[in-house]
């Protein structure tokens, strides 16, 4: 019984990428067709061969982690899914051309907000990616995006915010009122790629001033 194409079997084959964690996802219509299995292939754009993704052959779930296989952030990739139903229907669909550096979204940074009496220190921790260079060194977002910088805001009240920005990891908002609550918001920005992360938010209170006046 030759498998024939069935469009509803397979839809929306695409990469979902965040901080270079590249997950291939797809849907079917209706939601689940019992007995349908899926197989994933991937290739580098410009190379002739499609490669089968081990661990994603004849699976029933609708996602497949291709982070390692698409781990060269300068390369361009394609992936495709083949679905085969228990009645012999089949469908194959390919992603758009995927370029990790272009398509990945950036998660909020990891930040430690340290309250002092009249200042708040903010320490941005490096974000490691799942990628390694030729020497086996795990790359950070800063190493992948040369123009990456941090933008920090401290909301003092409804009308007044303080701003700091830069490429370094340590920042300090000073001349603050002791024993007062502030809202800090920190985003990662990559201007040449038109990328900006969602904010990391910290609510922090300056310490009481115990010095005798």
């Amino acid at each position, binding site marked *: 019984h030759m498998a024939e194409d069935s469009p509803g079997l397979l839809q929306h084959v695409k990469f979902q990428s965040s901080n270079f964690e590249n997950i291939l996802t797809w849907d079917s219509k209706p939601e689940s067709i019992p007995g349908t299995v899926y197989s994933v292939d991937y*290739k580098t754009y*410009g190379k002739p061969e499609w490669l089968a993704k081990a661990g994603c052959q004849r699976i029933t779930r609708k996602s497949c982690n291709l982070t390692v296989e698409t781990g060269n952030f*300068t390369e361009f990739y394609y992936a495709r899914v083949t679905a085969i139903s228990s009645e012999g229907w089949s469908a194959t669909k*390919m992603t*758009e*051309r995927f*370029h990790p550096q272009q398509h990945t979204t950036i998660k909020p940074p990891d930040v430690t907000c340290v309250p002092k009496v009249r200042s708040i220190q903010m320490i941005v921790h490096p974000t490691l990616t799942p990628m390694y260079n030729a020497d086996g060194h795990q790359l950070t977002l800063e190493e992948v995006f040369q123009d990456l910088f941090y933008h920090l805001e401290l909301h003092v009240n409804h009308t007044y915010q303080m701003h700091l920005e830069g490429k370094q990891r340590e920042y300090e908002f000073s001349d603050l009122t002791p024993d007062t609550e502030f809202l800090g918001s920190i985003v990662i920005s990559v201007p*040449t790629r*038109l990328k900006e992360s969602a904010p990391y938010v910290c609510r922090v209170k300056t310490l009481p001033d115990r010095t005798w006046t």
Partner: protein
Amino acid sequence: EFRFGPCRVEGVALPGLWEAFRTVKDAVQVQDNNTSIRLLRCEVLQNVSDSESCHLVHDLLKFYLNTVFKHYYPKIAESNTQPSFSTLANNFVFIVSKLQSSQAGEMPPDKDRARRRFLLFKRAFKQLEIQAALTKAFGEVDILLTWMGKFYQL
């Protein structure tokens, strides 16, 4: 600002080029059915020295203007993406004009190396049927912009 070795080009915003191409990218790349051929492949763009880069980007952008954009335009005219197309084309014209003035009269060995890289690209382009070649080359503007981005400073 772009710094292609000795050649400086100010007044071009790379994010703007990305934004322009992003509008047309998916519509163009989906028409490129041949995923096994890449025109701007590694041998063309990898390990380009600063001194080669000016010559190579000049040749590539001129080819894109005089061949790719020129002959691909009818397809763009059918879709409503002319503004993005014009942004790309006008910025490429501006860059080429700035590069031309920077490298007049120079004939260093770098020019020959850059020329050989460009000819690799052009030969691959000529080996395809013309419409397929135009679609593929236009769809590879993101590869070109990614490479140009290495020479860009905010």
